[in-house]
């Protein structure tokens, strides 16, 4: 559990699953929403991580 990326992936997957179950009603829509949310979490974290790479200046 020492890998930051693995922790990020597990966290994103679990939170996306809960959001998908709460915000969509049928299985297909849940799957689609869950995958989109997971991708969004991962992409946002990686982009922000790279943007902060030079900090502190």
């Amino acid at each position, binding site marked *: 559990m020492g890998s930051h990326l693995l*922790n990020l992936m597990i*966290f994103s997957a*679990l*939170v996306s*699953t*809960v959001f998908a179950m709460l915000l969509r009603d049928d299985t297909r829509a849940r799957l689609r929403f869950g995958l989109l949310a997971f991708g969004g979490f991962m992409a946002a974290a990686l982009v922000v991580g790279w943007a902060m790479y030079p900090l502190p200046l």
Partner: protein
Amino acid sequence: MAQSSEVMVRAARPAAAVPACLLAWLLPGAGHLYLRRPVKGLVLMGSILALFVLGLALDARLQPYLGFDDPLAILRSLAQMAIGVPYFIARALGFEAGMVTSVTHEYGNTFTEVGGLLNILVILDAFDTALGRKK
């Protein structure tokens, strides 16, 4: 339209709203199981408990903080308590101190706090389900 309203009224169980919310707080997903949404209840239970247990494995601190010098810490403690019975079991089992020196300590705190916050959404969803506003 008339048919969908009829279906919603039939599905509504207003008397079950309070017990469903209480069960949902005590054990994540139990409110939906009580409202006969087994798949939804089990998935929510599995996901939220997984967040909580992984948070403990990542050395989260569960000790409640109620001092007024750090209001955000109060909110973090309340978020962890929203997990319900598993939170109090974990504290009784000696997980409350966590390990501040651990590399993953803050990850653990985040996992447990977000698990609790998600459970608040689950409680509200159980309330809406009992009133027939949601499937």
